[in-house]
C-alpha cells in the first residue's frame, strides 16, 4: 500500500526558510500561522558548538493521535498516509491540538491580515472563511498529490504534483515520495543514510524522516 513520506537531509538544510515562505504562498495561511517552519537549534558548549536547522510540520503519522482523539471524525488518515481535516465537520474543540506532539496544528478564531484590519487584494482573494474556528495544518499539498491520479505524474518526482516546500528547497534537502515503493527516491535515500524520526518513542509512526549522517 502506498505511503507518502518526506525525507529531510539535515546535513543540507541551511535554514533559509524558503520552504516556510513557499508554504505560506501555496496555502495562504494567515499571519502567525505556519504550517511549515524551520527550527534553528544551537547546542553544545564552546568550542564544540553546533547549529542545526530542522524543518518541521505535520508529520502525517501512521498512528495519528490527533485522529484518535478527534470527536467529530473531521481528522482522518487516508490510505496513502496523508492526515486530513474536514473543515465542515471540525468544531474547533482543540483536542487534536493537545494530542499532537509536533505543534503542527493551529486554530484561528478570527480573520488576521498582514497589514492592519483590512485584507490586501491577495488576502481578500484567497481568504477562506471555512478555516476560521477550526483546526488547520500542513496537508502535504494534498491537492497537488491528488492531481497525480489524473495526470499520471509521480509525487516527489514531478514538481506539479509535489508539495510546494519540497519544490522550493534551494539546497535539495527535502524529498517526497512513496516509501512503499522500494525504487522510489525516498526509499533509496533512507537505505543509503542514517536517519531518525522525531519523538518516535511516542508511537506515532511519523512520516517525516530526518537524515543526519551517511549510512
Amino acid at each position: 500500500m502506498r505511503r507518502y513520506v518526506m525525507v529531510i537531509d539535515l546535513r543540507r538544510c541551511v535554514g533559509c526558510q524558503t520552504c516556510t515562505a513557499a508554504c505560506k504562498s501555496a496555502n495562504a495561511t494567515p499571519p502567525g500561522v505556519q504550517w511549515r517552519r524551520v527550527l534553528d537549534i544551537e547546542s553544545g558548549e564552546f568550542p564544540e558548538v553546533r547549529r542545526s536547522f530542522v524543518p518541521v510540520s505535520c508529520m502525517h503519522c501512521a498512528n495519528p493521535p490527533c485522529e484518535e482523539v478527534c470527536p467529530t471524525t473531521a481528522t482522518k488518515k487516508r490510505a496513502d498516509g496523508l492526515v486530513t481535516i474536514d473543515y465542515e465537520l471540525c468544531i474547533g474543540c482543540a483536542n487534536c491540538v493537545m494530542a499532537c506532539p509536533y505543534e503542527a496544528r493551529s486554530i484561528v478564531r478570527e480573520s488576521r491580515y498582514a497589514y492592519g484590519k483590512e485584507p490586501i487584494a491577495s488576502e481578500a482573494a484567497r481568504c477562506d472563511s471555512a478555516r476560521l474556528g477550526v483546526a488547520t495544518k500542513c496537508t502535504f499539498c494534498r491537492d497537488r498529490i491528488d492531481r497525480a491520479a489524473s495526470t499520471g505524474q509521480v509525487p516527489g518526482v514531478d514538481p506539479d504534483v509535489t508539495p510546494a516546500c519540497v519544490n522550493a528547497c534551494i539546497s535539495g534537502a527535502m524529498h517526497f515520495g512513496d516509501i512503499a515503493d522500494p525504487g522510489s527516491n525516498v526509499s533509496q535515500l533512507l537505505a543509503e543514510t542514517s536517519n531518525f524520526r522525531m519523538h518516535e518513542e511516542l508511537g506515532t509512526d511519523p512520516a517525516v524522516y530526518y537524515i543526519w549522517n551517511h549510512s
Partner: protein
Amino acid sequence: MSGPTHLVPRRQGNWDWRAAANFICGGSGGGLLLWTACASLGGSDLRAFVLAALALIGVGLTCVWFELGRPWRAINVLRHGASSWMTREAIVAALLFCCGAIALADAQQVFALDVSGVLGLAFLYSQARILAANKGIPAWRHRRCLPLVIATGLAEGAGLLTPLALIKPAALIPLSLLLALNAAVRLLAWQRYLPALRRDGAPVGAITELQAIDRGSIWSGGAVPIALVLLAASIAQPLLAVLAGAVVVFTGARLKYTLICRASFIQGFALPKIPVRGAGVTAPGVKPGWENAQPKARDRTKSSELA
C-alpha cells in the same frame, strides 16, 4: 503551527479556564453523583444532591461549549465513539442527564439513581482519559495522571456530599470515613504522580508549576481535611466535616486548574542526533527545555543535552 519558532516547550494556549471548569465541575459532579447513588442505597431521598451533581456537570459542559471554535456544530462531537474519549464523554453525559432526570422526577426510581451513579463514574473516567490521550502534553499523558484525576473527582464528590451530615446526623461517621478515605487516596495519587513525572521527564515549566502546589496538595489537600473530618466524626460535629469537604473541593479545583491551565506545557522538539556537517562528527542530541536533561548550552536557545 502558530507563532515564532519556539524551541523550548511553552504552555498550551487553546484550553483556558473554560476547559478547566469542565474538568473541575464535571469531575466533582460525576464523583458526587456516584457517592449520592451509593448513599441512597440506605433509602434516603437525596434528590437535592442529584440535582447539584447534574448542575455541576451541566455548568462544566456549558463552559467548554463556549470554548469551541464552531459551537453551533457541537452535535458533531457525537460522531467518533470508536476512539475519541471526548465523544464518549458526551454520550455518557447525555445518558447521565436522562437517568438523572428520571431519578429527580421520582424518588422511588432507585434503579435510575443507581445507573446515574455508575454514569457519573463513567463521566469522570472519560474526562481522565481525554487528558491521558493528549500525547502533546507530557504532564497529562503520564500514566499516573489518570488515577490522579479520577481520585480527585471522587474526593471532590465525597466532599460535596458532606452537607448531608447536617440533615442526617447519623450519616456523619460514614460520610467522614468516605471523605477521609478519598482524600487519602488522592494524596497518595498525587505523591505518586509528581515524582514519577519528574523521573520520567517533562518540560521544566510543567514541573515548576506542579511543584508550586506540592506542599499545598499534601497539607491542605490531604493532611488537614483528613484530620478535620476524623475530628468531626469523633466529636460529632458535622460542621467540621462540611468544612473538611469544602477544603477537599477547593484544593481539588486548584489542582485541576493547575494541571489544565498552568502545567500544560507542550512536548517541544528534540534532536536525537545532531547532523554531521562541517566537523564530520556528530554530537549528543538535544531536547530543549526538559527537566531530565542536563543543561549544557549557554546560547539563545538554551538547549540541553539529552541525559
